């Protein structure tokens, strides 16, 4: 029975994705004068050159971090949306360390990433504390704090790190010692991909093979039961969000160090929100985060390529995201069908004289 249930969940997800894709394709069919070209760019564009496929991998890196961060927080049933702000502030703090020109290689990026991670931890920890102390909804407070993060970050760049000679509102150049090396020639895929992979693997072990992960999951599934069992749920609530914040913050730092010459974000980059989509696709299971991240990155790059060389806008992706998430989140999608399965199964076991 339990195997069937997993299979059913998989079928449900795949079906949701397919339906979403079909909706998008139909939309393209109607919106475009040259639908064939638009479609093929969208679906196969990311595969048509190493550079394009590299784009997909590049985009996966931040998604792996934020997806894991969100899934850890969500596993504890903490709906902290601060991954976005943590990612952004992680990038800012990393920049402040990275523009320092006098540090050694290796040490430099490590310090920058740690700084970014700690900032993220602090940032996501605040809504957690508010929740534990005053039972303030972490969803609302973290949402609000994201804007604090944005304007605080821009202020810091503008007043302390801005390179006035550069024209736009960007930071000084990052020191070469701080940068992450490229690992695939002819693409911009950087060492961050390896770090991301390691983090996701560690995240999986943490959630499913350590006492701390167990506490997080138990608290998320039934906090009364967790408390009854002797688990200090308040600490778990804080731990999950501090850890999520750390991962998201490190992700922001790595994104800056791997992809940019200067800090140049003028608004929230959106990877935190995307992390939520990835976490939902992966059902909060770190082992499935790479699948979700790859899928979303692929869609995004495909849509970008399509927008660049056809008459369809890349916003098509948002239709897909929307439909997909509604279908996956809707518990009763296919519930009727599942019940029929259960019914038939029960009949069968009854007939075979259990």
């Amino acid at each position, binding site marked *: 029975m*339990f195997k069937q249930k997993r299979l059913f969940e998989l079928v449900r997800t795949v079906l949701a994705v397919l339906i979403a894709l079909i909706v998008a394709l139909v939309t393209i069919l109607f919106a475009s004068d040259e639908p064939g070209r638009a479609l093929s760019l969208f679906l196969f564009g990311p595969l048509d050159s190493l550079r394009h496929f590299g784009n997909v991998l590049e985009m996966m890196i931040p998604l792996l971090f934020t997806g894991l961060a969100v899934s850890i927080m969500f596993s504890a049933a903490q709906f902290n949306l601060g991954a976005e702000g943590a990612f952004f502030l992680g990038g800012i703090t990393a920049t402040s360390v990275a523009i320092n020109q006098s540090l050694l290689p290796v040490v430099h990026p490590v310090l920058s990433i740690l700084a970014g991670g700690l900032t993220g931890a602090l940032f996501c920890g605040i809504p957690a504390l508010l929740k534990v102390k005053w039972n303030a909804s972490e969803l609302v407070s973290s949402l609000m704090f994201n804007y604090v993060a944005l304007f605080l970050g821009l202020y810091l760049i503008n007043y302390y790190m801005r390179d006035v000679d550069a024209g736009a509102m960007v930071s000084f150049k990052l020191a070469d010692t701080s940068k992450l090396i490229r690992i695939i020639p002819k693409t911009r895929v950087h060492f961050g991909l390896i770090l991301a992979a390691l983090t996701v693997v560690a995240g999986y072990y943490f959630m499913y*093979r350590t006492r701390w992960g167990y506490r997080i*999951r*138990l608290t998320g599934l039934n906090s009364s039961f*967790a408390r009854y*069992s002797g688990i*200090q749920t308040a600490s778990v609530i804080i731990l999950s969000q501090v850890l999520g914040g750390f991962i998201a913050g490190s992700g922001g730092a790595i994104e800056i160090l791997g992809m940019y010459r200067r800090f140049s974000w003028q608004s929230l980059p959106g990877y935190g929100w995307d992390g939520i989509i990835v976490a939902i696709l992966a059902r909060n299971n770190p082992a499935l985060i790479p699948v979700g991240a790859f899928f979303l990155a692929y869609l995004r790059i495909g849509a970008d390529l399509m927008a660049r060389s056809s008459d369809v806008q890349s916003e098509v992706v948002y239709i897909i995201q929307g439909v997909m998430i509604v279908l996956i989140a809707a518990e009763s999608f296919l519930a009727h069908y599942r019940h029929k399965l*259960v019914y038939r199964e029960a009949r069968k076991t*009854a007939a075979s004289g259990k």
Partner: protein
Amino acid sequence: MQTDFLSMNNITKVYPNGIVANDGVDFSLRKGEIHALVGENGAGKSTLMKILFGLEHPEEGEILLKGESIHVSSPNVAIEHGIGMVHQHFMLVPSLTVAENMVLGSEPRRGIYTNIKKAESETLELSRKYNLTVEPSARIRDLPVGIKQKVEILKALYRGAEILILDEPTAVLTPQETKELFEELHLLKEKGSTIIFISHKLHEIKELCDRLTIMRNGRSQGVFNVADVTEKEISRLMVGRDVILEVDKGPAAPAEISLKVRNLTVVNDFGKNAVNNISFSLRKGEILGVAGVEGNGQGELVEILTGLQRINFGSVEIEGENIAGKTIKEIRNLGTCHIPEDRMTYGVAETLDIEQNLLADKHDSPRFTGKILTRPKVIRENSLKLIGEYRIKCGSPLEEVKMLSGGNIQKVVVAREFSSDPKLIIADQPTRGIDVGATEFIRKRLVELRDEGSAVLLVSADLNEVMELSDSLIVMYNGEITAFIEDVRSLSEEELGLYMLGIKKQTDGEIGRALHV
């Protein structure tokens, strides 16, 4: 031959977890009868009645009322057809008054406001008519269980119920209250109501009912005139074998004190003393029962002893240590285990698998986890061992707990709690709502653990259980101890009922014997 007033034909219901709760069940009612629906816990009685009341929807089968097929899609439809139900767990709003609860959803209005006066006078009128005495302006939360039940019955009648379903109404009552209820039901019958009475207490059925339908394992075992069958025949049809739910237990050999409660007072959210200055001791090697109608402070007492709630006044010592300021974990580490009253809220995480549920209180013990990583092999051995020892019926340790039947879920809880070498066992309604097999098993285990030297505090609203299993007994009424019975064998059910209702109370000297000093 009387014709059937209502009939349910070939009803089949499969729950989302695959449990076949009703399997081709036929059920019929004659107008004006009291019809018993009997069967052990988990037989599917509540499910069948929930289907009749529109709360659950069957996969197969039809319902005929006065010969016409009806489709009961919701309780509202059921009420329109004159079907009312009093649930096993009451569904009243505690902060509202009796009259407000009565009219909830169909309030008499004056402008945009509820016409309270009218609601109260209607309540009173109805309560006079059926001789169900209630005070319309009293708040539900201040009322004892017996009265709440009357409110529930009146509520159904207020909505025009001709067929009244009572789901295990006597499970929560004292013998005296039960007697009162039976008189009221007889009156209802005289006035033309048809009543479905669910119970597994056979003498009650003999006393009250005209016909009975017996269920076992989701199937109907047939319908009989009560006069035509003996209690023994009924019980054999119910369980499929002769059962004697008597645990054979030798005399207790009490040793030193394990739990010491002194002058404990618990103030609840409404500022009332839910537990009022109680003192007692529990020794190793004995089972101390805590009897009482539910809601007389037993729940609060258990919450204090297990650390779920902080102590207001008084002291509690477990194994010689004062538990004030200790965390739940620390209290557990003193050797305490806890079977919670509400297993689905406190006892398990239903979407987690059995194996992980069995681990909750010991997930961080060195046996199951190294410095960092857990030991999957040892964990698997542990779960397989417990599943075997406690005969938990499941396909695999990786099955979700919610896929199990009530009795097996309780076994998961009990297996986990009992496997931590407990010195003090707090068992709160350990066999509520579970089948005979599991009940028997759990009761036996409790006695075994007693004999191995554990101290057992058994809180139970089930008179049979508390009388049969306990060595000594305290009775709680209104937050206070009204009696201490040193030797339970000397106690009659009637006398216990009087203590439970607060009609009789021992002297302080007699109650003081519970301290064992």
